[in-house]
Every structure is written in C-alpha cells, then in structure tokens.
C-alpha cells in the first residue's frame, strides 16, 4: 500500500487528486497537512483522514509520498521539505513561478533521491493520446503549424494574486499546452512572443486574464496559443484544451475534454456540459502511485515542469520587453 499525503488544499485540483488516491486500491490517502488549519481540518473530516497541522510531524510520519497543491509560490518550500524527508513528490502545475524555484526543486529531489512529478494530466486525456498516436504514425507527415487554446473561468482568490500565483491566466493556462506539444512533437520551444491583457473582469484581478502567444519550436513549427480566464460564469463547462495541427498530409483537431452530454437543468435554470470521458487525473495519479512503488521518476517529471515554466516565463518577459524572446 502506497501511503500518500496531501499538502494544502489551496488548489482546487487537490479535491480531484484526493478522490483519485482513494479510488486506487494500491494507494491510501494517509494524512493531510495544510497551512490553513481550518481548511485542512474540514477536508480531513470530509475525506476521513488524519489532519497533521505540524509540517515536521506530517513529514516525519510513515508517508511514502506527497501531493503538493498549495499556492504556486509555496511549491518550492514544501517540495524541498518533502524531498528532505525522503518522500516522493507530485507537484501541481505550474511547477514554480520562477526558474530559480523550479531548478531548486528539481535538484533538491535529485539530491534526496526521490522522484518529482509535475501534474500535467492532459497528457492522459484519451483524445490527446489518440492525436499523439496519429502524429507518431507518420501518416500525416510533418507538422507545420499548431493553434492551441486553454480557456477557463476566472478561479479568483490567490490565483489572481501575483504574490501567490506568480502570474495570471497565462501562467495558469500555458504550461499544459507547452507540455503537451513538447511531448507530442518531441521537440523543444525556441522562441516566444506574447500579448497580455487584464480586461475581462472589470480590472478586479491583479494579474493578466488573457494571453495571446506566438511560439516557435525546433524545426520552425509555428505555434499560436491562447491562454485565458475568458469563460463567463454561465458557460456550460469549466473551459477547454484544444489543438489544431496543420500537417503535410492533413489537419488534426483535438478538443481534449469534449466528451460530454448537454444537460438542460430546469431546476437550476442553466445549461451544463457534463463530462463522461475517462478521468485523466486518475491516470496521472495511477502513474504516480506506480512510480512510488517502483522507486522511479513519475512519467511526467520535474524537468518537464521546469521546461513548461521556462516557456511561460519567457512569454511574460516578451510582453514586458515588447519583443519576441529566444529560449
């Protein structure tokens, strides 16, 4: 049995990961720590798991691994502490809000001999897996251009506070797609240009809520990406991850989470897209549990998280300087 602890429920994804851990027979949700004791206790009660408010005690317990779902700027401290205690770590994306933090986290885990994973569940979304298989088959030849989107609703709270998030919608919604393309096309990004906006929420956010990015990958692949918190509250789902690949032999379109039924909810007076596809989070957590058991790096590791962070930070730098930035 792999004993897993969750460090902080600041990020909404902690709930999904907790449910996944509890759904996997070889794993157990063994303890919860949270710097917000009230939130941690409530979650511990809900999940029928002990709450350990003291970080040293939490890490001194017999946990095999931890999932870090704190605010972005707290990732480094928590990951370093967990690594020093010999725990395998799965860290929520973005891995860190600065390159310095991301590098320190990767090297702390290496030094401690523990695995470090970055939570990029999109790689496990089956429509994405199918698109990668199509690309890998070579049937469509070379990829020339890609258009991507990762839209969502404004999460509010610390997400829109630079001090805790390190950036807004572009920080939140660029890393997934950067990681997907690095993996699907097996090459690195070389260049990025970005326009940022903070103009979809009456200026109530302290961060950007919109980024329109132009990137290049090795071999000259041109990539356009839109990261946003543009979906209104009444939108029928949380957002999307879409990719359009312009290839020599044709065009491939993926709408990664578009396996849904449309629900017209008369009682609530709203329309919802209810997902029914396989749960990508579950596949991500399963890989993490296996990594802990096999004492290996998670399939999507800290270096992947570091690369995605580097591209995203370059986008912010591009906006500040008003020019395309080389990576």
């Amino acid at each position, binding site marked *: 049995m792999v004993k897993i602890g969750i460090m902080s429920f600041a990020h909404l994804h902690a709930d999904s990961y907790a449910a996944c851990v509890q759904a996997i027979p070889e794993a157990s949700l063994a303890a919860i720590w949270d710097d917000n004791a009230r939130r941690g206790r409530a979650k511990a009660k809900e999940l029928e798991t002990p709450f350990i408010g003291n970080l040293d005690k939490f890490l001194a317990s017999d946990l095999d691994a931890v999932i870090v779902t704190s605010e972005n700027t707290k990732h480094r401290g928590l990951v370093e502490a967990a690594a020093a205690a010999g725990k395998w770590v799965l860290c929520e994306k973005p891995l860190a809000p600065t390159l310095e933090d991301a590098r320190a986290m990767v090297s702390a885990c290496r030094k401690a001999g523990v695995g470090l994973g970055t939570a990029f569940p999109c790689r496990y979304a089956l429509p994405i897996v199918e698109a990668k298989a199509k690309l890998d088959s070579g049937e469509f030849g070379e990829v*020339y*251009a890609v*258009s991507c989107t990762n839209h969502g609703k404004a999460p509010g709270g610390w997400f829109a506070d630079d001090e805790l998030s390190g950036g807004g919608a572009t920080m939140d919604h660029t890393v997934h797609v950067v990681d997907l393309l690095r993996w699907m096309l097996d090459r690195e990004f070389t*260049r990025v*240009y970005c*326009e940022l*906006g903070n*103009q*979809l*929420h*009456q200026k109530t956010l302290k961060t950007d*809520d*919109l980024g*329109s990015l*132009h990137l*290049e990958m090795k071999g000259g692949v*041109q990539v*356009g990406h*839109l990261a*946003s918190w*543009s*979906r*209104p509250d*009444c*939108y029928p789902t949380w957002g999307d991850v879409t990719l359009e690949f*312009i290839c*020599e032999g*044709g*065009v491939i379109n993926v709408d990664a989470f578009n396996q849904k039924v449309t629900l017209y909810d008369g009682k609530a007076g709203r329309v919802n897209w209810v997902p029914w596809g396989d749960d990508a989070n579950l596949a991500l957590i399963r890989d993490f549990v296996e990594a802990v058991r096999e004492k290996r790096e998670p399939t999507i590791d800290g270096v992947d998280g570091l690369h995605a962070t580097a591209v995203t930070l370059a986008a912010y730098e591009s906006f500040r300087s*008003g*020019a*395309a930035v080389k990576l």
Partner: protein
Amino acid sequence: MNVAILGCGGMGRLHAQMASNCGLRITVCADKVAAAATALAKDFDAKAMNDPMAAVKAKNVDIVVITTPTPTHKNLVKAAAAAGKHIFCEKPFGRTVAECKQSIAAAEKAGVKLFVGHVVRYFQEFEEMRRQMESGAIGKPGWIKMFRGGIFPGTPGSWFRDYAQSGGVTLDSMIHDLDWLRYAFGEPERLFCQALRRKEPVQLDYSQVTLRMENGMIATVIGTWAHPTGFRVKVEICGESGMIEFDSNEAPFSAQAREAAAGPSMIVPSNPVSVSPYQLEWEDFLGWIRGESMPRVCPEDGLRAVMIAEAALKSARLRQPVNL
C-alpha cells in the same frame, strides 16, 4: 446605369448578379480568358471582350467592377477613373499600400466614386454581433478571436498560388477580418504575425496574428488555406460580463448527396438570407453614387486593411512585432 465586369471568375459572376438584382444592366464582360468572358457575357446578354483595359473605356459603361487578380487592381482603377467611370473594386484594394494610394488619388482627381468590397461589414451575423456588443450584453469587449478559411483557392498555376501576387491567406482572406476589426473596434496599435506560406511539398498557408488595438483590446486572428476541404468562419468575443460565439459550421441547412459521380461527396452548408450581403454592399455603393448616403466602406478603409496585412507579412518576415 450600365456595368462592365472586369475579371469573369467566380467573384465577377457574383457581382454581375448583384448589380443586375439592383436593376443595373451588364453591358460588358471582359477577361483575358476568352471563354470566361464569353460565358458570363452570354448569361447577362452583354458584350464579351478580351482586354479589360480596353473595356474600361467602353462608351456604354457607367460603373466598372474590378474582380481581376489583386496586382492588376491599381492600373485598372486608374484607367477607369481617367475614363470617368465609378468603380467597384473587390478586396484586397491593392497588393501594396503604395498601389492603394495611387488608386485613391486617381479617383479623387477624376471625381468618381470608388468602393472597396469589404463585404463582411454587411454580413448579417457580423452585424448581429456588433448589435449585441453595442447593447452592452457582454459588457466591455476585451478580446476577440476570429477564424476564417479552408481549402487553398485556385487550381495549380492560378495567381492565388503565387504569394507574390496574392499575398497568401493573410492579404487575400484575413483582410476581411482585419477590416472588420477596424470597423467594430477602431485602429490597431501593433501586431505580431506568423505565416506558413509553404509551396513544397504541398502548397498551404496558415496565418496566425495577434493585434493590440488602440482601445486596449487584443485580437487573435487565424486565416487558413491549409485545410483539405471546406470553408469555415468562427468568431468569439469575450467581454467583461459575457461572451458571443459564431460558427458557420452550425448552419441551419445542409445537403449531402449519397454519391457523386466524380467521387466522394461534399456537404454544402448554407445560411440563407433574403438579401445577400453582397447585394447590400451594392445598394450601399449605389446610394453613394446617387448622392443619397455615405457608404459603409470608404477607399481609405481599403487602404488601411492592406496596410495592416502588409504589416502582418512584415512581422512574419522579421519574426518580431510591428507598430502601426
């Protein structure tokens, strides 16, 4: 009033029909390809000519319609203006800003009306989006994404396939959206563009542009001549309290043949309207000629759209943003 059609391809035929719907007579159909001129002339009971430049000077012509390849627009506009004819010039207004300036100067000097066919300003779905924004339904708009295109136009050997002539998807097709952005939101301040412009091993063009408007909005525009089939237009406008979407694939009518003799069948979607937006632009143009109203599109608009597309192509070349 009598109309000469210069360039008897698909757009020439379309405008002949629209002018005819407005009660005008088509008297001359000119095209270097004799068969094209003859076929259109026959359908509209007009005279076929092989030299568009000669047709410009025909006596029984009041309005000249220019639907020839883009780089030929300027000389035809100048000749038509010199001959005292009113001019309907299909978009793009010219291949370069310099050409557009010459055309405008010629029309001003001759005192003739010069209209540029930025027809998207007349499309009912685009007008509805503008109405919704103006009503405040989505609050202040902050971002727009526009998508237009499909298959690469023209057969092998066609001028469309020569980027030097057509300017590719950025100048020829995306120019619709670049113009509409100005119409709906004002002037752009700077832009960044990536454009594929491939010839080998397959010819395809895919253009991705981000514009920062003077009012602070961000516009993301995608133009494609890289899809294997079809034609699609998508628009998404996000505001401070809502969002507007349009997708031409969600059409109210489509017909699918079981099997065509030529091979696999193609679905042809349709959005029927009682008055075509092409006819609306003709009515607007004619109202201007009659002195009743000012048109929705002025020659300066045609020039500005070419200027933005030129800046986009420059940005793609430099791989850096370009200020406007």
